[in-house]
């Protein structure tokens, strides 16, 4: 596969004008408040569901975010225009809480101490705050938000069509990778949540319920094949933005050939439901990694709790198959699960640590946090409430150490 990623820095575009022209027509949505915020502004974003980098396929805009929004063409090839340094942020509070989401507040602080805990504190953010239409339930409202935020991201990126990009990256990757003689083969076992409504990552617009480990081209991931719809712990989950800009995929593509052979990316479901489902998925992930010829794998985690068990069982299955592993996990005070085979773990930080109090001048997304505190004077906030703070795909430089 060959992807041309054309970058248009947000500062070179008339974003305000494009934002003003955004249209929202969905009977499931009563209203959308739109605001643009810049890094350094005294603003806290609350109830953040997802973040999306504006992308468009200039040669076929209708195929952008295939499956989730656009027509079904494989992502990862051809030209994609991206607005670099910008994100669409979808914020919403669910009207009728059928699931106990109240501990799972999701924040982005544009300044203050919390700004060090999200990549989205450093982007120009087009903040969309959604209100559901009367009588629309959580699942329908969420589906509407999910589609609308992607449409907004695509429509904003359409501003770039016909313009000269600042830079074009040419990314080339074929399953199996390439490597000089003697370098080890490394694969990525990428965990993607599928726990039920409001806790789903989407692959070409469908959930991973029933999905078994299978290769996905890393360029598909960078090009919008994976989209977010998972509203667990904000710090531990993966947004659409973090797939589009995955530090891990970027590092693996960059190292392919010289330091190692990047043998492939294997998508794996997280939150397999039963013990047997977990064991089966772990076994199959190790089998696929083995078929790709991997000497070693990096096993990532999406969200937390019993998805950490999926991670650990996958580590065990790989090690037993003779494939060396590194697991990447966030700590929740400590490890949630562990197997003795997991002897090399990257700690992406302790999600429970408190970030000092900060009082923003402005709050977008909703003034009252899910736990009832006022967002502008909420006191110290745990790391887990900041979007992507302890991203278990390794986007951030946080690490927990003994104290």
């Amino acid at each position, binding site marked *: 596969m060959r992807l041309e990623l054309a970058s248009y820095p947000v500062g070179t575009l008339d974003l305000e004008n494009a934002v003003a022209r955004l249209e929202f027509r969905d009977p499931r949505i009563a209203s959308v408040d739109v605001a643009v915020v810049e890094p350094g502004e005294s603003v806290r974003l609350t109830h953040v569901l997802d973040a999306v980098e504006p992308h468009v396929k200039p040669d076929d805009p209708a195929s952008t975010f295939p499956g989730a929004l656009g027509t079904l063409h494989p992502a990862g090839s051809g030209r994609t225009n991206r607005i670099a340094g910008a994100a669409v942020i979808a914020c919403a509070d669910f009207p009728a809480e059928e*699931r*106990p989401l*109240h*501990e799972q507040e999701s924040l982005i602080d544009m300044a203050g101490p919390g700004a060090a805990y999200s990549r989205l504190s450093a982007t120009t953010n087009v903040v969309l705050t959604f209100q559901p239409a009367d009588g629309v339930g959580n699942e329908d409202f969420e589906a509407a938000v999910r589609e609308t935020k992607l449409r907004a991201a695509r429509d904003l990126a359409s501003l770039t069509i016909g313009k000269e990009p600042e830079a074009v990256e040419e990314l080339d990757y074929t399953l199996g990778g390439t490597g000089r003689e003697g370098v*080890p083969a*490394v694969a990525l076992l990428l965990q993607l949540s599928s*726990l*039920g409504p409001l806790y789903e990552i989407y692959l070409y617009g469908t959930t991973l319920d029933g999905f078994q480990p299978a290769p996905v081209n890393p360029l598909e991931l960078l090009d919008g094949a994976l989209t977010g719809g998972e509203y667990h712990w904000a710090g531990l989950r993966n947004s659409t933005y973090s797939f589009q800009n*995955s*530090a*891990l995929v*970027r*590092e*693996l593509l960059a*190292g392919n050939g010289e*330091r*190692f052979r990047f043998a492939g990316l294997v998508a794996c479901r997280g939150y397999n439901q039963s013990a047997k489902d977990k064991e089966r998925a772990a076994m199959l992930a190790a089998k696929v990694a083995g078929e790709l010829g991997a*000497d*070693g*794998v*990096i096993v990532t985690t999406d969200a937390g*709790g*019993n998805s950490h068990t999926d991670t650990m069982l996958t580590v065990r299955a790989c090690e037993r198959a003779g494939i*060396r*592993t*590194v697991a*990447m*996990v966030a*700590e*929740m*005070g*400590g*490890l949630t699960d*562990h197997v*003795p085979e*997991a*002897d*090399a*773990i*990257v*700690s*992406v*930080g*302790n999600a*429970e*640590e408190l970030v000092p109090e900060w009082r923003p001048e402005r709050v977008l997304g909703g003034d009252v946090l899910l736990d009832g505190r006022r967002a502008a004077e909420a006191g110290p906030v745990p*790391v887990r409430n900041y979007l992507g703070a302890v*991203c*278990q*795909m*390794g*986007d*951030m*430089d*946080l*690490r*927990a*150490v*003994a*104290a």
Partner: protein
Amino acid sequence: MKVVHYLNQFFAGKGAEELAGLPPFRIEGAVGPGKGLEQLGLPIALTIACGDDYFGEHEDLALAELLRWLDEERPDALVCGPSFGSGRYGYACGILAREATNRGIPAVCGMDPESPGVIATEGAAYIVPTSTNVAGMRDALPSIASLAARLAAGEELAGPEEEGYLPRGLRRNERAGAVGAARAIDLLLAKLGGDTRTEVAARFDHVPPPPPLRAAGEATLALVTEAGCVPQGNPDGLPTIRAAAWLRYPIAGEHLLREGEYESVHGGFDVTAANRDPNRFVPLDAARLLEEEGRIGRLHDVFYTTTGNGTPVAVSTKFGQEIAEELRDAGVEAVILSGT
């Protein structure tokens, strides 16, 4: 710099076992090991002390008095012990150090790593590891004096390895200088090259399986769950996550848990399917069958429940100990613990 020192009756110079029942008392300035701390440059403003038995038997009273003195003095640091391998003394040191820390007074203990005082601190205090007996006094005091002086001066300490205190079970965040993605690749390539390293080592209890029941047909069996199963409507307000307590509900005479009468409030998994048959949280139906068939003696009259979701290990451990104590007192010999 103002430092208060806690000792037991023996180290405070009152006497040995025969005076272990002494209630809290105070002595201006340094006594016993405190003199050693002073020689190392840590001035002791006040020594507070208590008999080991008195503390163990009247913990609330003893603690209230000792804390009242700390509240009056507002020291910059508290030193407890060293208590070496002593169980009762170590426990008192640990509890007082924890409570002082929670009041904003940094505390340093010295004790054997196996002392019950270590768990009693709940990670709140700094503990310098010592030998099991008083022969280790000379080795222990310099570290204790140095950590206490620095904490009293408001310094932040580095990690347990650099500073020589026991890991408190706390995990502090730092910036690693490279993103997790780059570190993962480095760790993997190093491991493939034969150099296995980790950023976090597991610290799990390994519970040895108990011996089989002597006579299952005579044993009382209890049902315990962390599935968040409660009577419909959650009358006692069990939290969906981070539960701070456990509950018990009667099941005497009941043969199963009916849909609509019991439900799960657990916030960590989709409870919809199991709410249609709450026996899948608490297997009362199957346990009654075992009872009828004589494969167990009888079923305990209450079941125990909490929400095992986001619960810190220390809190879960405490729940387990409390529930186990009740079960043991009730003569329960076996438990089915349904996890989710």
